[in-house]
């Protein structure tokens, strides 16, 4: 009995592995640099509003805000990255916004303020680079990847790790 030639199994078009969908990133600015968070892990973007300052708060906490009947903590990503708060003498143009994100393990909702929202981009996974040990002074542990947006690097942040950690970070300029 003639066996089936092994090679015959390789004839014809081989099925391609299912292409993973591109990653949608919300790109925003902090200190003039571009950062991104995955849209799928983001609740909402709302206009910046003055927080109620809580007493003796951690450096990266701005206070609390009211949103849809709930009172949420507001973190400052700018302060988390070691930058001074925006003041009259801060160079640059700002249109601050608040990103609503959920943090594990209990999925609690909180607001994160950013200097300004830039745009939403879709990135093919193969275009996303593994980060070097540090990008702009941020250790790779807090970074999910780096992408190129018109010649400017976009740092895709792991916001859960970044906001859950107390490690001090100083953004390099």
């Amino acid at each position, binding site marked *: 009995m003639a066996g089936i030639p092994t090679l015959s199994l390789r004839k014809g078009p081989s099925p391609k592995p299912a292409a993973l969908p591109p990653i949608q990133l919300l790109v925003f600015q902090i200190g003039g640099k571009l950062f991104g968070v995955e849209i799928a892990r983001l609740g909402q973007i709302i206009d910046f509003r003055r927080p109620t300052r*809580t007493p*003796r708060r951690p450096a990266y906490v701005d206070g609390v805000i009211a949103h849809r009947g709930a009172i949420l903590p507001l973190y400052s990503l700018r302060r988390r990255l070691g930058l001074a708060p925006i003041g009259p003498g801060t160079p640059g143009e700002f249109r601050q916004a608040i990103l609503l994100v959920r943090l594990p393990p209990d999925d609690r909702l909180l607001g994160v303020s950013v200097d300004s929202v830039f745009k939403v981009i879709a990135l093919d996974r193969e275009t996303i680079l593994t980060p070097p040990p540090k990008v702009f002074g941020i250790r790779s542990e807090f970074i999910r990847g780096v992408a190129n947006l018109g010649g400017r690097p976009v740092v895709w942040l792991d916001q859960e790790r970044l906001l859950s950690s107390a490690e001090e970070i100083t953004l390099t300029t």
Partner: protein
Amino acid sequence: MDLLALRRGRRKAAGPQPGPAREEVLLFLVADEIYGIGVRCLRQAILSAGLRDIPGGQHDALGEVGYRDGKIPVVKMGVLFGFPAPADPSRRRILVVEAGGRRFGLMVDGVGETAEVDPKGIDPLPEMVTLLDPRLFRGLFRHKERIVLLMAEGGLAAMEDIEAYGAGERVGG
């Protein structure tokens, strides 16, 4: 006059009261944020002119003031909370509080109105929004588009500095 009529039992119900029990809260300012404390623990609001440091005192946030025939410890709320001193100190008052069997004062930057609060509308303080002992706060509630931090009189009375204040008056037996 400066004194507030905030004595216990001021409101006597004529009969059974329908609806949820609402709590009366005095609103006060520390820096430009609004705080509240239950009226039931308040005895008086007095001028802050007599406030002095405690001889040999080890805590900047604690002073003392003459009250009736003795003296009571006073928590300087702005110092405790880490807020700058107000530009206009003329509105400062000392709220005389009785809680946990102790009588003590809270120096605040201004006294406002009273508000009626539904206890069900008091949210717990979110995690990580203050480095102070969370037992100092009962929670947060919304009042006229502002967020009010509600103090816990029992937590204030249990502060080590108040407990350690040798001359602190014991009240209520």
